[in-house]
């Protein structure tokens, strides 16, 4: 193959992916470079700065490498005498070039360090002015327990896998590990923090525009690590207040016959062993709290859309969707299952 062709191929091979990267990194509800809050915004700026500088460095070094290859020969080594003492003048010139290249590297790294430190301060959790809403988040294998804390005890409530936050207000998360280490990461809003048993980690974030942002556990936590996700729903303050008002209420009592039968099914089968429904006798906190499960958008840790069909399939055969998760399979009759789904869906 001809040498110039090789070079062209190398250049193309290196440039093409870089272009693809530039073009395809926008959009998405789980995307670090599509920021929706001040923190992720800062991080995204930092990313683009580093990306551009590093790309330039890479291209320059590659040009240098390719230039150093411009003298080619097909000769066997014996025909070229080895040069153990190259001309001093030339060596000195090269030394100067290498020293300047190293100096530039050091300067770039220093700039990176300072920028990184100042961004780090901005996103640091220890900011007393940034305490707004406080949410306690506990990671379990493989779902998220969300507890809204408040000075007024009647406003404290627990939900799961779906976090509502008001737009424009800093939200502090107090992160605890329920069993193994998990990591809370909503890329559009902020960087990740680990949930570690025996420790409390804090993170604050803020959403600037309303929307749904998907987060996922980022620290390997066992069989269903892949499907341990959550939604953060940012909504205007009034909407959030309304949601919160509803969330602090006890569950809606069943009204239709089918719902009443569903409640009975809930209490007479395995459901009641793990799940709580506030306002009823079901009070176990092993699985997600179902007090307002009908109002959630997703079930199974943000894996399945919350429809009647999905819920029925999930209750009957959760192990097919998420093998190894802690919810057992249930042999309910069709009628019982439909009644149960009726009841659960009515818990708005």
């Amino acid at each position, binding site marked *: 193959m001809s040498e110039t062709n090789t070079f062209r191929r190398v250049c193309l091979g290196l440039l093409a992916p870089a272009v693809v990267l530039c073009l395809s990194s926008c959009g998405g509800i789980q995307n670090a470079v599509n920021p929706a809050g001040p923190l992720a915004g800062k991080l995204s700026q930092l990313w683009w700065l580093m990306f551009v500088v590093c790309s330039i460095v890479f291209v320059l070094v590659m040009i240098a490498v390719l230039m150093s290859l411009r003298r080619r020969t097909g000769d066997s080594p014996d025909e070229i005498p080895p040069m153990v003492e190259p001309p001093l003048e030339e060596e000195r010139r090269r030394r100067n070039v290498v020293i300047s290249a190293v100096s530039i590297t050091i300067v770039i790294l220093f700039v990176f360090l300072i920028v990184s430190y100042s961004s780090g301060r901005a996103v640091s959790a220890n900011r007393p002015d940034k305490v707004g809403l406080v949410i306690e988040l506990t990671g379990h294998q493989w779902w998220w327990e969300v507890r809204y804390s408040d000075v007024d005890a009647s406003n404290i409530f627990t939900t799961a896998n779906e976090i509502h936050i008001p737009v424009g207000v800093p939200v502090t998360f107090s992160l605890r590990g329920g069993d193994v280490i998990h990591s809370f990461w909503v890329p559009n809003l902020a960087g990740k923090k680990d949930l570690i048993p025996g420790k409390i980690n804090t993170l604050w974030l803020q959403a600037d525009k309303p929307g749904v942002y998907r987060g996922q556990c980022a620290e390997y936590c066992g069989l269903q690590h892949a499907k341990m996700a959550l939604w953060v729903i940012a909504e205007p303050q009034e909407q959030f207040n309304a949601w919160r008002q509803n969330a602090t209420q006890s569950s809606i009592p069943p009204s239709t016959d089918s719902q009443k039968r569903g409640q009975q099914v809930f209490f007479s089968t395995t459901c*009641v062993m793990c799940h709580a429904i506030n306002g009823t006798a079901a009070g176990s906190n092993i699985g997600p709290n179902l007090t307002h499960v009908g109002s959630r958008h997703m079930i199974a840790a943000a894996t399945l859309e919350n429809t009647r069909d999905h819920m029925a399939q999930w209750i009957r055969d959760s192990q097919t969707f998420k093998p190894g998760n802690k919810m057992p399979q249930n042999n309910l009759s069709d009628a019982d299952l439909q009644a149960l789904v009726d009841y659960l869906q009515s818990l708005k």
Partner: protein
Amino acid sequence: MFKRIFFCALLCLFVGSCKREQRQFTTPPATFKSYDVTMSDIRPGVGGLPQPVQNPSDQRAYDTSEGKRLFSQYNCSGCHFNGGGGIGPPLMDEKWIYGDRPENIYSTIVEGRPNGMPSFRQKIPDAQVQQLVAYVRSMSGQLPKDVAPTRNDTMNARRSEQRTERKSPQQTTAPPQ
């Protein structure tokens, strides 16, 4: 020849360790139905004791560990504590009131027993009952050491099941305190 020996050794290993590491996620149909409690060896009519039933969970480390989790999450520990007993009878000693066989313990959980043990029929699926049964037996060292659970990540009130020495079960009629 060395290769042959090596493969034979490997084969032996295969046979030995298959069950221990199994993780069964989809629930097979229940192997235990309801069993009568055998309080004595004397039986009416012909025929001896019912055939003992093997609990598949007895051989799987994952199942005993799940059993341990459920034991505390389903609040078995509320009465039996960490096996030492209190409100309910102790489970880590050699005395058994309603039988020590897996099927006996299964029935105890599913049917409940007089003087306080509630029935968990329908409340706990069969597969989980089997896991609990395996765990309960591991508390008195009835399971192989490599299957019984090790310590938990909380305060440990006693030696782990793996390090509990095996007790030979005895029938007792003493009523629970």
